Every structure is written in C-alpha cells, then in structure tokens.
C-alpha cells in the first residue's frame, strides 16, 4: 500500500510539473493565436476574442485560473479553432487512440514474443539470425514510411484494407456486429504498422531472456524433468521473461503514443494525435495544452501500472 501511495504521489507531482511547464512554454511562445489570419479583419476583432477567452488577463492570473479549472473541474477551456469545450473534444478523440494503441500493443507483443520464441528455439541458427536482423530493420524503419508503404501496397494496390479512417462512410447505419467488423477492418493495418516498430525490441528481449533461462538451474531442472522444449520455453521461459517484458511495456507506452500521432495522420485515424496535430497547426493553445496533459497522464498511468504489476511479480521490488 505504501508503495502504491508513494507512486501515486510521485505521479501527481510529475503531472503538475508537466502542466506548469506546458503552460509556460505555450504562454511564452511568440505570436498571437487569436490574431486574424485574414488581413481585412480589423485588429479590434482579435481584442474582443482575447477578452472573451480571458487572454487580456496577466499571465500569473491566467495560469492560476487555468490550473484551478483543470485540477478542480477537469475543465480545459474552449478550443480557439472550433469553440468546442476541449474536454469534450478530447473525450471524443481519446477512445480511438486507446483502441489503436491497445491493438498496436497487442500486435507488438504477439509478434515480438512469437518471433522471440522462434529465434530462441534455434539459437544461432539461420532462422535466429534472420529474426534478429528483421527485428533490427523494422525497429529502424520510421513508422510513417512503413505506414505509407503498407497503404500503397495493401490498401491501394491489393485492396486488402481500407486506405484510412476508423469506419466506412455512413457507418452509423450499420448494426453492432457489422459496425465492429467495420472498425476491425480499419484497425488491423494501422495497429500492425504501429506495433511492428516495437515488436523487434520485444523479440530481441524475449529471445535473450529465453536463452538465458535455458542456462539457469531452473531451465536445466525443467529439462531434467523431461518437459518438452516447447513447454519449457512457453511456460517456464516466458514466466522468467515476463518482468522484463512488462518493463518494456512501460517504456513502449510513450513510444506508442508518439507513434500513434504519426500513424493517425497517415491512416486518417480520428484520435488524439490527429486532434493534436490540427491544434498545433492552427495555434489552438487550449487543445495543445490539454493534449499534452492527456499524453502525460497516459504515459504516467502506463508507467504506474507497469510498476505495480512488476511489484506483484517480483517480491524484491515490494521489499524496496
């Protein structure tokens, strides 16, 4: 319990620091986000909008009012671009991002563990070498490039997947089962592309952990008991590797989120990344701030979850 409280307190402090830094960076950046882009619009117009959005107040007062609204009411203000409440806007954008990131995480672990198992089952063979080289290559390839190529070949070329979006046009008319299948048809390719980038890492970690396990006393004992190689690797080896793999999940959470921003744009996926990019392009400061904070919350939550899970799996951490 003490560990959980300590971790929660640290997470809250970190979140507050992120909020303050994000506000400071955005507030001190040059330029006026409400300045009319059309030169025929008189400057008084911007003054009116500034007053409406409270930007005519001194910086410390704006900061305190903003922080108070965020912390007490989770109120992130209104989007300068759409006028929509920011919390509502991101509430709409968050589920698609979580779905994509979750599916990518699944793809990443399934692919990574699968490849790691294959490589560990024949260490130093040609197969092992191929898996290791392939892991490095996919890790090195930029997500946007892989995404574009995947769309060109699999969607535009072969018609195996939609070229983008989360649903087909007018999907609101579909029944629940057809709608789910429609989302799945749109999800598999971006999830695979996003998952691929980290799958190589998982594969290499899985491989080295399994090979390491085979050399331990436990590994030798399992073999002496006559267990099959498959069972040794799948059950005992993976149990041995799981703490390290979980640690990787906490590391890959921020990478998945930043990767999701790119993948969402390439695949026209309507999530947090797309909303953030639009906000950055249009100087929509309230959305930029909130999206930064949402990203921070997701990363902190993922790290916290991984820490707590690790402490359940590894008694040494609880003892600390």
């Amino acid at each position: 319990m003490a560990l959980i409280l300590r971790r929660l307190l640290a997470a809250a402090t970190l979140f507050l620091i992120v909020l303050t830094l994000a506000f400071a960076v955005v507030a001190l950046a040059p330029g006026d986000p409400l300045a009319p882009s059309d030169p025929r619009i008189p400057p008084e117009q911007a003054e009116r909008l500034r007053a409406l959005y409270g930007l005519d107040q001194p910086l410390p007062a704006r900061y305190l009012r903003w922080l108070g609204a965020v912390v007490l009411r989770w109120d992130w203000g209104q989007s300068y671009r759409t006028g929509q409440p920011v919390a509502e806007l991101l509430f709409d954008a968050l589920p698609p991002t979580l779905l994509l990131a979750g599916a990518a995480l699944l793809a990443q672990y399934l692919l990574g563990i699968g490849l790691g198992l294959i490589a560990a089952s024949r260490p130093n063979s040609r197969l092992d070498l191929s898996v290791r080289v392939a892991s490095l290559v996919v890790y090195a390839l930029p997500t946007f490039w892989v995404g574009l190529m995947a769309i060109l070949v699999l969607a535009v070329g072969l018609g195996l997947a939609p070229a983008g979006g989360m649903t087909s046009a007018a999907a609101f008319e579909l029944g629940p089962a057809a709608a789910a299948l429609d989302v799945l048809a749109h999800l598999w390719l971006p999830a695979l592309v996003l998952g691929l980038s980290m799958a190589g890492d998982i594969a290499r970690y899985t491989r080295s952990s399994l090979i390491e396990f085979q050399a331990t006393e436990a590994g030798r004992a399992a073999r002496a008991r006559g267990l099959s190689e498959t069972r040794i690797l799948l059950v005992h080896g993976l149990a041995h590797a799981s703490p390290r793999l979980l640690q990787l999940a906490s590391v890959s959470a921020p990478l998945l989120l930043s990767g999701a921003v790119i993948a969402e744009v390439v695949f026209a996926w309507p999530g947090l990344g797309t909303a953030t990019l639009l906000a950055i392009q249009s100087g929509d400061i309230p959305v930029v701030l909130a999206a930064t904070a949402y990203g921070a919350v997701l990363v902190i939550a993922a790290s916290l979850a991984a820490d707590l899970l690790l402490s359940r799996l590894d008694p040494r951490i609880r003892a600390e």
Partner: protein
Amino acid sequence: MIPVVAMRLLAAAGLAAMLGWGCASDTPRDTTRLTVGMRFEYPTPNELIGLPTLSYSAISNQFFLPLMAERPDFRDGPPTWAPGLAADWEFSEDRLRLTVRLRPDAVWSDGEPVTAEDVRFTWLAQTDADIAWGYSFYKESIADVEVVDAATVRFHFDAAGPTALADVSTGLILPKHAWGERPFAEWRSDPGWFFENMVTSGPFLLENRTPGRELVLGRNPNYFEDGLPRLERIILRSATDSAALTNLLLTGEVDVVSGLGATDAQRIRNRPGLRLIAYPNRQFTFVSWNTRKPWFQDVETRRALAMAIDREAMVDTIWHGYAEVGNSPVISSVWAHDAALEPWPHDPTAARDALAAAGWTDGDGDGILERDGVPFRFELATFTSAPARWDAMQMIQADLRAVGIDAQPRRVEANALIQRMRDKDFDAAASAFAIDTSLDLRYAFHSQSIPGGDNYAAYANPEVDRLLDSFATRLDPAAGLEDLHRLQRVLHDDQPMLVLWEPLTLAAFNEELVSVAPNALSPLANLEEWAWR
C-alpha cells in the same frame, strides 16, 4: 499456449476483417449518395462563431443561404449578384436604402417560412459584441435593418458606398425561431448546441454527425428549387493529411477531394476513373521586402531582386505547373488585372548590373555584396506550416547566392511571424493573401496600414494612397479600372513585394460525377446539381 491461441484469434479476426472489407469494396455504387473527403472537421453550423474560412463556408452554404450570392464571373467585370433567399432588391435613388423582397417559397426545413424577422435577427447577431463575428466589419456601413413586412426588409446605410450589396449579402441568414431563444452571450460557449438545433433553408439538412469522422448531409425536402438537390445524401469524411485523402480517393472510399497538393495531383492525373480539375483561386504568394531595412530601401535593389529570382522554375518544380507566375496583387483571374504588365524577367546578369548600379559591390572578395559597409545578408522567413513556400525559400536562396546575396531561410511559427511582420520586425518574408472581388487593397499597400497592419513592407507612396482611396470610394468599380491599372503599374515598378505565384486549386472527382463546377468561391459550388452519370 496463450500467445499461440491469441495469435490465432488475431489472425482469424484480421482475416475476417480483410474478407469483410474485400466484399464491401465490391458492392455496386449507391448512386443516391456521394462521399467527399475534406482536410478538416466542420466545427459548427453557426458561421458567426466558427473560423471564417472558405472550407467551412462551402459546407455552411449547403445548410443556409445568403440573401444574394456572388456570381463567379469576376473575370469579366465587377461582382454581380444572384438571388439567394431574396427574390429581388432595389436601391433608393440616393442609395442610402436597399429594399429586399424575400422569396415567397423560401421555408426552413421544419416548414416555418423564412421571414424579414430572420434577416434582422441575423444582422443583430452579426454585429453583436459578445458573438464577435470575424466579418462584422462588412456590416459597419449598415445603420439599421428594418422589417417592412414579413417578406420585405429594408437596409439603411450611413453613406452610399460601392460595396453595399457585398455588405448586405455577406453572411448566411439564420433561423430566428430556432436560435433566437439562445442569448447571444452564450453562443460561443457551446457551438455543439447549434448542431442539435438545426433547421436549414439551403438544399441540405444535417442527417448525422460523428465528431472527428464525418458529417452526413441529407436532402432538404422543403428546399424551394424543384428537383434539387439531385443527390439524396452527401457524406463529408475528415482526414487531416492530403496524402491520406488522396489514398482514400484512389481506393474509391471518397469520390471527391478538393485542395490537393501538387504532388498528390501528380498521382491522380492519369488515374483511370478520376478527373483532375485545376481552377484559379483568389490567392497569391509573395515575398515582402521590409523597406525599413538597409538592403531594401531603394527601388533599384528591389527590382534587381525581382530579376535575380527564377519564379518560372518555382512554378515548374514546386507546383508541377499547377500555378502561374504572379505579376500583380490584382491577380490574373479577376477583371481588373492589367494583362499588359510584363513580368520582371529572370535575368541574373541584369540583376548583377542593377545591383552594381545601386552601389552593391563585393569589396572584401568574400562573394557577398556590400554597400556602405553593410553586407547583403538577411533572413528570409516563412511559416513552418507552408512547405511549398519553404521549398521556394531554398530556390530563392540559391538564385540570390548566384548574384552575391546571402539570404538565410528560416521557418517561424505562423502566428509569431505574422506578428513580427505587422511589427516590421523582420527582413524579408514569404506570405500569401487572398483577395476579394471588392479589390480594396488598402490593407496591403496604404501607408495607413503600416503601423501594426498588413502593409508588411512599410511601403509608403502618396500616389498609391491616392489611387487606393479613389478606387475604394467609387460607386461604380468598373469606372475605376484606369486607377487600378495605374496602381498595378506603380507597384510593379516599386516592387515592395515580389509576387511569386498564383496557385491553382486542385480538385479530383470520380469521372462518373456530372454537373460539377467548382470555382474560387466554393469547391462545392452548385453541389445541389451534382449527380452520378
């Protein structure tokens, strides 16, 4: 075991999804509907609280109508107006009053008639300080809007002006009976409310909205034009990235995309089943030379810069030919453009000679010219969000380097750069303007627009001021053609800005679509007439 099972399940699900998608892709086209790809999300049907952009207007115009609509005939002469919700209109002799009679068959989608009360309500909203509509300046000339009877409304003006019809017709007429209950002070706090309380007078109504994904427009059965719209449903799908939209077009997931980049247009140009249309818009891209800086104070140097820069190469390389070399801020697709103006030729030798004549020499032999001890080295800025302009900056840098000038390209966040340009805190910068057909260019070249305004170059010429003022107050713009030609000649000679190019808008359509006629006023112009062959 678990990973193996999970992997099998995932593979099965993926296969099912792929097969499902494959089957769905083979379904025959539903000719009652059309899917349009757009690079933004439509934020609100209430144009008074949304950002004033052409893209949003193109959609708002499907829901609501203005009293009169500008015709896209600005190449032939000053703007003319087609009836919208107005049946006809008439000025008083002194042009201080305009009486507008509404169409008797104009009704809202809920069956309520469109009345003069709606027109007055709209004017009150357009000019309300709490709503702070971006284009409220169009209404400054209107002193009052009088309801004469249910179908007649009278506009009263402070003074007779050439833009009276433009001032009256700017803005769509809003439904008082549906939106009047909400205080103006609350309009900006919840733009979603207007989606929930939509009644429309235009060809379409709102059928469904999925935030971040799509907007579905359905046929308005109460629209006054018989037989229109021809399509029952328009689905507007959002994707922020131009390449992503192009991919959706190539796979047939959308039927129309407007605002394509030149590179994407290349992918579509010869694609079977698709038709690429390139049409003029009303923008031009330019480099402003800050005349307060020592490099750009004299006309001879600015002319030399115009001759040193190869704009044809930019149009060919960056735009793949989908643009025209710019020559005047009165762009070539409007009636008052002076076609007799000869563009400054790309002539590096002449540029070098002109620079030498202006006193620029390479005294220290470092390859960079100097004058009065000041090296010809300056920062050439543009927006981070303008890749075409950034490419152009690289080309300008190379062109100028060839004549001994060191231009240092730099990307700056858009709002920050605009502010710097308005404060004259820059050396040279590339930007773009979109002109309207009133052709009132005082904001860009009048000396009164120097302090904090958009006369970025800080250019002051009494003759230009006089010509601008004279044209802006003429009741008959056509009679001011001579003034406008003279203005273009002076600007061409003085070169406070070098107009780089006039881009074309690139739109791609499924070639089975008929009656499609996008224009500079709207990429979805005459959408109600579009149909499948």
